């Protein structure tokens, strides 16, 4: 049973009229899952500053008590890349050298953007208890803010990658601009999955314990620790099921192999991103009015 809030006849006079702070509200139970989408989106947009402020303060407070402070934003990804480099070099006795390391870094950094969006996003609603109990606002802002936080963590890694790109002697040219739309698609996909898991987490608290393992296996099933072309034929179907495969393969093609991404892969990746975003978003929004009762 889902009960919720219906807004009737909003007063157009209010500057902040968006269903959460209009002049006249009527709250009634209703069973249909979704609120009117357009006013909802407007309310989200009006509060976009909240999303940025929340991720900025989260970021600032996360390294508040450490010696290196904000430097961790750089140290973390460096250590991460180093650990996986050791792992891959030693375990697979691969001798990839600098170009492979560049591929590894590019893939790892963007994958960690995805996985921290999802892991933090999943906790965002359950962890936002007091704010949710005391203020009426569109709850999607919470998982979306986790994605923004992950993006802010991702930004400094771009600089690290740029250095590696130069060291590996990889070409620089307009083809690199393809990285922007590819990243945008990964971000859309990450937002969708974050919203899905954030809502699911309210009902199954175990999810946050599973998630780190899910994302780790997901990493192993993605063309990050290896090139997509190296995957043996018998594992191809598994790779094909991975929604991140087309996007990460294009990402590596553009950054590390100086290739135009294939249109097929891009379309495939975009389809996954949109499906995840719409499905995750609708699931979240249809459930969000129940969150206050469930926390």
């Amino acid at each position: 049973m889902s009960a919720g809030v219906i807004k009737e006849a909003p007063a157009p006079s209010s500057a902040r009229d968006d269903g959460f702070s209009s002049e006249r509200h009527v709250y009634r139970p209703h069973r249909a899952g979704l609120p009117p989408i357009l006013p909802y989106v407007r309310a989200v947009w009006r509060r976009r500053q909240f999303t940025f402020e929340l991720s900025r303060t989260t970021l600032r407070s996360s390294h508040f008590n450490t010696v290196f402070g904000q430097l961790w934003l750089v140290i973390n990804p460096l250590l991460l890349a180093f650990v996986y480099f050791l792992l891959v070099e030693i375990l697979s006795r691969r001798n990839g050298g600098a170009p492979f390391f560049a591929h590894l870094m590019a893939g790892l950094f963007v994958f960690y953007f995805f996985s921290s969006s999802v892991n933090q996003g999943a906790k965002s609603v359950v962890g936002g208890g007091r704010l949710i109990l005391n203020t009426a606002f569109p709850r999607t802002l919470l998982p979306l803010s986790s994605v923004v936080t992950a993006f802010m963590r991702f930004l400094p890694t771009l600089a690290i990658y740029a250095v590696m790109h130069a060291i590996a002697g990889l070409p620089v040219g307009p083809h690199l601009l393809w990285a922007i739309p590819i990243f945008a698609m990964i971000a859309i996909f990450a937002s969708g999955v974050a919203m899905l898991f954030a809502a699911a987490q309210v009902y199954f608290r175990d999810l946050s314990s599973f998630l780190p393992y899910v994302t780790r296996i997901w990493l192993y099933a993605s063309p990050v620790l290896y090139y997509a072309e190296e995957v043996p034929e018998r594992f191809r179907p598994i790779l094909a099921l991975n929604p991140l495969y087309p996007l990460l393969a294009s990402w590596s093609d553009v950054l590390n192999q100086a290739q135009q991404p294939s249109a097929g892969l891009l379309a495939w990746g975009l389809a996954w991103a949109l499906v995840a975003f719409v499905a995750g978003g609708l699931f979240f929004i249809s459930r969000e009015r129940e969150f206050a009762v469930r926390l």
Partner: protein
Amino acid sequence: MPSVSDDPRAEDSAASGHMTDDASIKVENLSVTYRTSYEKAPTLKSMLMRKRRGERTVQEIEALREVSFEVPHGAVLGLVGANGAGKSTLVRTVAGILPPTEGRVEVHGRVSTLLALGVGFNRNLTGRQNVVLGGLAAGLSRDELAEKYDEIAGFAELGEFMDLPMRTYSSGMYGRLAFSVAVHMDPDILLIDEALSVGDARFKRKSFEKMRELCAEARTIVLVTHALGSVRELCSEAIWLHKGRLAMCDEPAKVVEAYTRFLDVGESAEVLEDV
């Protein structure tokens, strides 16, 4: 004077005509049911185990049952009742945070909530950051907030504590900041959930004055409190909730009298004092 609706049938016509002109909050036949699992945190394992035993996972708690009342503009409504009577649930429903399970709530005007020390949702952030985040979530713009921030900080009188993490605050400071935020959000309707009890005597005086000021501007206030003295002093009407039902709705003095008689404590100093 809040009038208990004689007609229990909540009509859902969208026309504003059936609401008396001077009512700012109208609650009709409101019921709220919490659905909780037995466990505080529902986990997969316990769910599977219960499924196997064929038990129902959901337990229903009826927090409010068929409550109806109206609050006119400019009124101060006192809400009294024992712990767990449904006071906070009622306030959250009026604020649009909890959806009603049945019935209808109609609210005219912008609502600002001060619910059980509401601003400090993240104790690791400073008072300033909490004020900004709370304000942005409530839909204020950065400019509006910058305008109001000094007033808020000034009224709360926290000095340099505004830039310290809220975990360093005493509960009185918490309450002062929460109250200050709520009254400066320019609310048409102010919902206050037992926050006044934590301020010291001077701040309490100051907040009483602020609330009178708001009432004079025809703002509506709903005050949840165990301090029956405040109900008498501030409120123009009062409601007594008992186990989710509306037990009484009358003049503050009468409600306080009946409630204290019910509590069987008599009008001793302890009850009238803000505990």
